[in-house]
């Protein structure tokens, strides 16, 4: 085990142990330990879920483009990308499972699926995607020359695009939330997911020594292109919304840009998640270490974009005056995650990290050829 790997294990284990406190509080206190409630029904855990699912989609894109579309530069990263995709999916589903009011009724999603609900469809798509990941992992390690691998990867690519977009559509179809209701939201989810997943694989590949120079070059320009596309999408969304001036949408945007959590947008989402990585990739991206830094920054700040989508839409009252109409626990339009929510989020991410690290130990990926 390399020194880097030991450090990663240490961080993940500390996160796991610290986060257990959040897990215990979740099970003993139910949802009273969380700051979300009636007016802001979704909070940090939903943002973590969407972030991790996005990372899974992006990671899988690397494997699918390499094996399904035969992009040679990405093929050395197939294995690490598959493991990342699986670990991130497991973490994301764990987050949303713990967010349910009745987690033990999750099976109803399969036995009583509503065909009109995107969330109902998502349950099946996740199952299909998760099963496909397991099959691909098995085949890639046990029968790497299997002829069914390329078509399965191509199928996975289509599936990832479909459910990556559907994940955004889950928000985009909610006309009651002005900030969400936008045709751009599914596309943003797909693009942001692709960026965060590719960045995570890049970061891990650099840390664990799986990145060769050809893959690095390809990922550098691919990531740079996707980041610029995200800039265009976000500019398009924000500028048209503000100019159009629909009150509820503008209020949500105002909160994102200048509200009490302005720093989440300007420092994390724009600064560390877009501007700095773009500069690093464009200016010093030929050096592996800076590629890793850029990937790490994007991966760690990817939660901010999801927080800025999920929360600001919900903190704007549907009807003026509702915030004072009746008060009590859960009836607040202000939301900031409680310590329990943060701890459980840390635990979930740590579990995902441990799944990845354990899989990485058990199923070793190719190491980069020395230059």
């Amino acid at each position, binding site marked *: 085990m390399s020194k880097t790997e030991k450090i990663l294990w240490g961080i993940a284990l500390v996160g796991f142990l610290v986060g257990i406190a959040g897990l215990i509080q979740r099970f003993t206190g139910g949802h009273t330990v969380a700051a*979300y409630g009636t007016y802001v029904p979704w909070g940090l855990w939903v943002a973590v879920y969407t972030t991790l699912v996005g990372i899974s989609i992006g990671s899988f894109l690397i494997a699918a483009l390499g094996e399904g579309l035969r992009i040679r530069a990405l093929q050395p990263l197939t294995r690490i990308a598959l493991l990342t995709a699986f670990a991130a999916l497991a973490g994301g589903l764990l987050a949303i499972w713990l967010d349910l009011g009745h987690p033990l009724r999750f099976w109803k999603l399969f036995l009583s699926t509503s065909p009109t609900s995107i*969330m109902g469809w998502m349950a099946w798509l996740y199952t299909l995607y998760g099963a496909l990941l397991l099959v691909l992992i098995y085949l890639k390690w046990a029968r790497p020359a299997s002829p069914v691998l390329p078509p399965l990867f191509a199928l996975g690519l289509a599936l990832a695009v479909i459910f990556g977009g559907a994940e955004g559509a889950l928000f985009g179809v909610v006309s009651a939330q002005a900030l969400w209701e936008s045709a751009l939201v599914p596309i943003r989810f797909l693009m942001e997911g692709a960026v965060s997943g590719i960045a995570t694989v890049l970061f891990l590949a650099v840390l664990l020594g799986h990145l060769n120079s050809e893959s690095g070059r390809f990922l550098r320009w691919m990531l740079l292109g996707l980041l610029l596309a995200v800039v265009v999408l976000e500019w398009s969304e924000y500028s048209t919304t503000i100019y159009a001036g629909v009150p509820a949408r503008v209020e949500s945007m105002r909160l994102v840009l200048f509200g009490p959590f302005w720093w989440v947008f300007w420092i994390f989402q724009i600064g560390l998640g877009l501007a700095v990585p773009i500069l690093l990739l464009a200016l010093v991206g030929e050096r592996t270490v800076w590629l890793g830094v850029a990937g790490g920054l994007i991966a760690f700040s990817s939660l901010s974009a999801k927080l800025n989508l999920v929360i600001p839409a919900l903190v704007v009252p549907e009807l003026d*005056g509702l915030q*004072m109409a009746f008060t009590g626990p859960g009836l607040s339009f202000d939301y900031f995650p409680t310590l329990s929510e943060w701890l459980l989020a840390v635990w979930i991410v740590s579990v995902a990290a441990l799944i990845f690290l354990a899989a990485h130990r058990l199923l070793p990926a190719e190491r980069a050829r020395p230059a």
Partner: protein
Amino acid sequence: MAQETQTRIRAMATRRAFLARFASGIFASLIAPAVASDVLDQVEAASPERPGIDLAPLPELPEGLNGQHPIERMIKDLRRALQKPVDQRRWAMVIDLRKCVGCYACTVACIAENKLPPGMAYRPVITETRGTYPNISRRFIPRPCMQCENPPCVPVCPVRATWKRPDGIIVINYDQCIGCRYCITACPYAARSFDSGYFYSDFEGGSPQPYELLPSPEYGEGRVRRRDASPVGNVRKCHFCLHRIERGELPACVLSCMGRATYFGDLNDPQSLVSELASRPNAIRLKEEMGTEPKVFYLV
């Protein structure tokens, strides 16, 4: 002189009659909720599935200012509707904002009726203030569930735990709901609540008080609230006191309204009071542009 005295006596008699009638109207309005609920609680009315069963006699209410007392008329409307097949009823509510004084009696009555936990009100009253002091005006807007004809909360539910009944009321199956809260985000009126599991005793220390362990009559299920069972962890909402309607009783908020600002009945019955009121030109609905077709009308 005698003629003048007789005229004065007649005038006094007329005034007395007017005052008596006026006072009885006010008195009736004030006591009607108590009287009606007391009487109505004893009513074993026909359920929609059992039409034709004899209903208890209507409560004796004094005549209203404009003839029949509105409570009496609404009960008659309701019971007439119950004789029809369920899919021919269209329950609706009309709230006269000019009469609402912001007393919150409806909010409290709803909480008491449905045994709601802290932080949950199916019918909050929004206070809207306009202008700047001293040129200021206020109005009060009670907000029950709109029981939309096109409810956005229903199709998003991933497990079919919420649906529109044939009579138009949107209901939730607590045993089916997984608590994902997607429906809460989809409601443009914020009319759905999440039962996080709070008890009043959480804020006072100790175990739940006896009044917190009373069974809720919601959906006729008589659930006793516990931390580890539904409806804790579920989404909940106003259902127009469906359990009362099916007993031939008016919703708790309607009976408790001391300003007689809330009306309830069958929109499919042109003779009903709500039908008459909802067709007035000053009747509006909230967020018409959403296309939800609410069945709660506001008179402005």
